[in-house]
């Protein structure tokens, strides 16, 4: 049996949790160590580390340990693709509203026909 989850599914699951959304928002402003990420959150460090594991598994965040400090940063392409399909829906309506504009110009009953030169 296939145990594959589409990348967007993982990203959405990761973002469905409010704590993880807070962490991702913080990282969108710049990289942070795990303890910096944990500071504003009202939970144990191990709970934070668990949330981080979900974010890394989803591809939204990656981290690197140098010495004793683990630094996390956002993966911009992954987050972008999670928003992409909503912006596609918006873009599709934008195109239609543009075509509405063209239709209204074409069907304007007050438009004078072009004058033909004799």
């Amino acid at each position, binding site marked *: 049996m296939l145990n594959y989850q589409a990348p967007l599914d993982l990203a959405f699951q990761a973002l469905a949790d409010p704590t993880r959304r807070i962490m991702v928002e913080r990282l969108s402003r710049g990289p942070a160590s795990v303890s910096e990420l944990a500071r504003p959150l009202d939970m144990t460090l191990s709970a934070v580390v668990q949330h981080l594991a979900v974010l890394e598994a989803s591809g939204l965040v990656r981290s690197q340990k140098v010495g004793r400090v683990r630094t996390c940063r956002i993966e911009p392409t992954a987050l972008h693709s999670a928003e992409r399909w*909503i912006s596609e829906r918006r873009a599709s309506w934008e195109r239609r509203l543009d075509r*509405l504009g063209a239709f209204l110009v074409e069907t304007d009953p007050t438009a004078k026909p072009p004058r033909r030169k004799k």
Partner: protein
Amino acid sequence: MTVRNTRHATFTIERVYPATPARVFAAWSNKEAKTAWAYCHPEWPVSEHVFEFREGGREHLVTGPAGGTRHVFDAVFHDIVADQRIVFAYDMHLDERRISVSLTTIEFFAVAGGTRLVFTEQGVFLDGYDDIAGREEGTRIGLDNLDRQLRQQRAA
């Protein structure tokens, strides 16, 4: 196994058209007029289109690339104020899969020179929409890139 997800989003689009609110509203309320501009992909054949423009009425539209995915649009009109406002709810299916449910508000405001149209969509996006749509989009992007490369080669 389908992974269940929901993602909520709201977006607003505005346009100003050089036409009266009555004309712009008519482009939404009249089936013939609507079909002249409202199809997402005008090049796709339309296999079904039901249009009942009244409160409680529905719209049902089935299109898609020939031999490809069926795109199904189903709407119910909730609130209609002539020349001023339309509120409808719609869902989208790709083949059998429901990918979104949305509440859409369209308002028509008279302004100098015509009509300001304000389009607001509040939607919930469901369950791995990327599988089918992402492939189509990916293919389209791929073809665009190929096209660009070929043009560059020809220009060189």
